[in-house]
């Protein structure tokens, strides 16, 4: 595909730029797409998220990892305005996200998926897809009543949806209710649907959770494909193989803070990361309590 050929050097360039970046939490990147400053979120006495400074590099695949309860999903919600931080600022492509409603965040080009997949069960696969397109004329009530005003746009959207369904190998399920899809197919559908928004930043919350190994490989390829097409990807994941395999940059969270950053091969040896996952006292001699 020509699109791949023209944009591929961009990914390479973006990756090359990252090689000069220091491996430390909150480090500045050459061309960040998303910048977070002093964001905190408390639930009663618990500080779920407390991020001093973070930059998400543009054009590459970034993984957000961390043990259970590290605040990854909460942080995701804060980035997409599904939740409001108690303090701090978030800038997407230079624009402040404060007071921007969640649905407008999507229209800015930042689209997210959910940890618990949200396939719209009693809508067909193709309807799920067509919903994702933005700027639809027929989504205004009065114009909806005049089908000639939106028919041609609808046809274009359908064409785009069909192309994506084919790419994600869901075309044979086109007319089925999304509720009849398997867990893995729902993940695929959710990802394909989010691409209908034509985003610049795709945020995937645990794209591999509950997916069988065979489908995992194809999901990996799809995620890689997003970057090849010039999109920025940020994903939350527990599957370390996937993180090692496809991410260009890894951010590690623990207890609401960013504790490490760097290329995937760097974080495995980082003592702070090992402490976070295994506890600070691992390796200490076992002692019998008396």
């Amino acid at each position, binding site marked *: 595909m020509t699109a791949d050929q023209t944009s591929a050097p961009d990914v390479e360039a973006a990756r090359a730029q990252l090689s000069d970046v220091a491996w430390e939490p909150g480090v500045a990147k050459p061309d960040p797409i998303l910048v977070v400053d002093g964001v905190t979120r408390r639930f009663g006495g618990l500080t779920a998220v407390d991020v001093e400074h973070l930059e998400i590099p543009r054009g590459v695949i970034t993984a957000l990892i961390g043990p259970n309860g590290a605040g990854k999903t909460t942080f995701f919600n804060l980035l*997409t305005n*599904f939740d409001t931080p108690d303090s701090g600022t978030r800038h997407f492509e230079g624009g402040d996200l404060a007071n921007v*409603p*969640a*649905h*407008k965040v*999507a*229209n800015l080009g930042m*689209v*997210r*998926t*959910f940890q618990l997949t*949200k396939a*719209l*069960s*009693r*809508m067909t696969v193709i*309807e799920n897809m*067509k*919903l*994702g397109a*933005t700027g*639809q*004329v*027929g*989504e*205004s*009530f009065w114009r*909806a*009543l005049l*089908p000639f005003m*939106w028919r041609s746009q*609808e046809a274009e959207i359908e064409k785009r949806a069909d192309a994506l369904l084919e790419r994600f190998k869901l075309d044979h399920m086109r007319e089925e*209710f999304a*509720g*009849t899809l398997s867990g893995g197919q729902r993940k695929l559908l959710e990802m394909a*649907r*989010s691409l*209908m*928004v034509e985003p610049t930043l795709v945020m995937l919350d645990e794209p591999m959770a509950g997916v069988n190994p065979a489908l995992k490989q194809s999901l990996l390829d799809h995620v890689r494909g997003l970057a090849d097409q010039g999109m920025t990807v940020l994903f939350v994941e527990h599957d370390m193989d996937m993180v090692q395999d496809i991410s260009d940059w890894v951010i590690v969270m623990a207890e609401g803070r960013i504790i490490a950053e760097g290329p995937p091969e760097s974080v495995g040896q980082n003592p702070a990361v090992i402490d976070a996952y295994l506890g600070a006292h691992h390796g200490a001699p076992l002692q019998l309590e008396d």
Partner: protein
Amino acid sequence: MDWGAIIETSFRGLLGETAVVFALAAIGLNIHFGFTGLLNFGQAVFMAAGAYGLAMMVATWEQPFWVGVLVGVFVFPVILALLLGIPTLRLRADYLAIVTIATAEIFRIIARSPSLDEWTGSSDGLTGFARTFYNWSPFDTRERYVFNLFTGNQFWVVIVGWVCVAIAVLVTYIAVNSPWGRVLKAIREDEDAARSLGKNAYWYKLQALMLGGVIGAVGGMLRAIATQSAQPQNFITDVTFFAWVALILGGVGKVFGPVIGAMLLWMILNFTDVFLRELVAEDLIPEAVLVDTQVGQVRFILVGAGLVLLAVFRPQGVFGNKNEMALDDR
């Protein structure tokens, strides 16, 4: 047995103005619940908005009939939908249910209060606002129409009523099969997913509440026109639940469901009423079991039992798709 009377009354239920009124109310509920997932337990207050909008404009403030129609169909229900929706639609679905059922009762009790007699006619309600409507009637008031089913005036109400139903069905059909309707269904399935794809769920829910309310108001207005009075007693909570029954009977989320549901419901209610009365009159049911004055209540018991059977054996209603229903239980 007077089979003629039984059949005649059944047909009046099937095609008469009551079926029209509840068809419209249920079409409105279908937009709320069937397509958007909004739990409106106060459809009666939207119907009352239509009835009182017309009646107060014409009878209290002596405005022309068409002003009353515009106020009753558009102004009152839209204001009501905004009042109900703005504070509650950001919350979970059950809050709207609580607020709507309470509002319907508040409205009815306020309309009944003697201190507002000057404006609402208190418990007697308002009359004399429908003359213009009947003056437009092309039918002879002394004649009877459609195999003696309707008087001239009734027939005029029924004709206008079914035209309104046809328009409401057409608008619903086009709207729910458009991209607009797709957003409503997405909100019904998962509001957060719709929002993550750039849809302003709150605003769409308000629009759905307004549209369903307007259609319900047309039903309420026709009820006031048919009885030539707008009374608080005509908009008690039961009215809301009859509309729900019509919707569930016909099939939730199906365009024709509420229409068929309302027709069947009133046909069955009328049939059981007359049929039981005939049985009692002919002494086929002994007096120890049932007397004439109890029939009105017993028919509701029978219809209620029928609904229980429907819920068990055909939960999707007449038109629904069982496979689609099953997807709901995740």
